[in-house]
């Protein structure tokens, strides 16, 4: 009996040592994700992005550290789209699962909440989808955001509109009453006023509104030249359709975020024509990169092969935080947190997503999100000229 016990004990110890060495040879990244609840669509998109990066890296042998390679392991938890749960899980990932680094939960609000935990434990965290300045105003050293701030979406569009439609005067803004869309609405108001345009209508609609006809009836009465609507894909499908039904006029429509998604174009059909939008990423971009993908085009084709559709900006963001972290670790030559943090601060990552460097607050400031216009059912980049695939069209009848 004793002998059996001794053998069993040895076996257990051996296994434990084995898993210990395994643990040393992997890079563990914690990722709280909204797999269920209101943000489930975004959560599953981020996860697709993470996994494409993960599979590509591991197939290539892992993250390069000198002459050895580290396999990457992602540890997920579902925070059910509730921010307090994301905070708890981040703490569990750091102290329980002993992850080396963190990817943020989705969106600005949850990223801000979790950043306090990352800071407390000194774990560098990459925020995949936070674009509001307020997330980065706490002086944290461990928070790095992939997106440039909201004004970087409104300013380029305002420039294009002002240049191509100099006679345009009246602007109407309808914004979703929610942190990011509202902040974006305010940025558009500022950008319009800065260029001497009159904001003749600015209203907010509540989250989950089904029927926008009252707001649009009022908006129509304000007789705008430029109609700007912020919100998410569902809102923007509804609003574009209802605006057409109610014969809201205007020369140019700017809707964010939605028209860059193929689902949006499919859902509104011909009404997509001429609509402008902006986004941090779109598969029509073509960057050459130093990351594992090599270029935007290669990333897009790998994504298509794996998931059967083109990546949208949320899916791409998931893969982008992966490649940035990988580049930082490879440059640091170790997975030591402060060495990696130093590399992140240093920046200059040429990725398939964009050239990424982080500003003093940790927010990316090295690229300009392109302006897109839907032309004949396809998304075209119309600004900046370096990446443009078409030119901005005016004279559309809405």
């Amino acid at each position: 009996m004793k002998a059996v016990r001794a053998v069993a004990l040895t076996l257990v110890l051996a296994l434990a040592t084995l898993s210990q060495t395994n643990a040393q040879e992997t890079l563990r990244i914690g990722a709280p994700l909204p797999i269920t609840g209101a943000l489930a669509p975004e959560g599953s998109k981020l996860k697709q992005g993470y996994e494409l990066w993960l599979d590509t890296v591991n197939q290539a042998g892992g993250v390069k550290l000198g002459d050895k390679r580290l396999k990457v392991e992602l540890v997920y938890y579902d925070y059910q789209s509730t921010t307090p749960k994301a905070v708890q899980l981040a703490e569990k990932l750091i102290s329980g699962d002993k992850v080396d680094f963190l990817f943020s939960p989705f969106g600005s609000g949850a990223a801000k909440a979790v950043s306090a935990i990352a800071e407390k434990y000194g774990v560098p965290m990459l925020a995949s989808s936070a674009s509001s300045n307020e997330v980065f105003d706490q002086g944290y050293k461990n928070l790095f955001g992939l997106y440039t701030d909201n004004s970087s979406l409104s300013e380029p569009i305002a420039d294009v509109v002002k240049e191509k439609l100099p006679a345009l005067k009246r602007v109407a803004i309808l914004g979703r009453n929610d942190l990011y869309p509202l902040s974006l609405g305010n940025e558009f108001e500022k950008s319009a006023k800065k260029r001497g345009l009159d904001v003749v209508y600015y209203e907010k609609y509540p989250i989950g509104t089904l029927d926008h006809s009252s707001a649009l009836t009022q908006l129509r009465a304000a007789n705008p030249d430029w109609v700007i609507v912020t919100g998410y894909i569902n809102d923007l499908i509804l609003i574009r359709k209802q605006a057409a039904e109610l014969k809201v006029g205007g020369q140019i429509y700017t809707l964010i975020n939605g028209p860059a998604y193929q689902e949006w174009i499919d859902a509104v059909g011909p009404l997509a024509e001429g609509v402008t939008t902006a986004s941090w990423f779109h598969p029509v971009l073509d960057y050459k990169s130093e990351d594992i993908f090599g270029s935007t085009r290669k990333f897009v084709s790998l994504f298509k092969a794996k998931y059967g559709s083109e990546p949208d900006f949320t899916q791409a963001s998931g893969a982008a935080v992966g490649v940035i972290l990988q580049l930082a670790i490879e440059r640091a030559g170790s997975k030591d947190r402060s060495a990696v943090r130093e590399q992140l601060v240093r920046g200059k990552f040429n990725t398939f997503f964009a050239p990424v460097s982080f500003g003093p607050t940790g927010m990316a400031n090295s690229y300009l999100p392109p302006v897109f216009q839907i032309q004949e059912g396809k998304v075209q980049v119309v600004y900046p000229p370096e990446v443009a695939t078409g030119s901005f069209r005016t004279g559309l009848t809405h």
Partner: protein
Amino acid sequence: MLWLQVLVNGLALGGLYACIAAGFSLVWGVLNIINILHGSLIVLGGYLAFFAHLQLGISPFLFAPIAGMLLFLPGFAIQRVIISPVMARPVLMTLVLTFGLTLFLDNLMLVAFTADYRKINLQPPLGVLEFGDVVLPLDRLYATGIGLVSVGALWLVLRSTQLGRAIVAVRMDRDAASLMGINVRLTHAIAFGLGTAMAGVAGALLAAIFPISSLSSSGYLGKAFVICVLGGLGSVPGVVLGGFALGVIESYGALAVGPENALTMSFLLLIALLALRPTGLLGRKGFT
């Protein structure tokens, strides 16, 4: 002309709103179950209409009655197999049960259909009716019209058929109905089935106008709730009145206090009504 357009906007949704709430009100009135599952069934009806349009090219307006028929049997079965055993328990038990069912169905649809928003694109589009400055989209007019006809059909069934009188009798006094030879268990299951059928009709009609997603059930449920309380529980004319009232209140609310406060206003009105006239505008005991 602004106020007239706003009135038309509100009225154009009224019949559809009545249709959303009719099945919910029936189940609540007859079975004394607050059926949280109702919103998810509406979404399921929407998906059926979406795929019928995509694969078979059937217009959602024609498909609405078919969606109703398709959802009757699952509703009947759900009541018989899952809900019936806890019917005698306090209302909170059935509430929790249907809440659980809605989580289950929502997630099932999430897996089956993903959470992408989808929209039926009628080709060619139906267009709009124009009266001077006032426009009325035809798809809304059809949806509201068919919604009203469906609610009217439900009313006729309840009023003039033996089955309908049995349902009303069970609603008024379960024990007395049982003594008169009515099969109460069967009547419950049929009433629940009719409720889910109405959800199917409403879903198909909604899908003609609004995008559908696996996660939009709670919005519809909330509307059904408000309409039932506005119009009065357990009355078909009540849900029609409640539906039009909600449509118009939402519409003018947005104009008066801004769209972001319109919802708050309709709920404030709801609280006021509950305080002053707790039976709703047309509510009374018995489902007539």
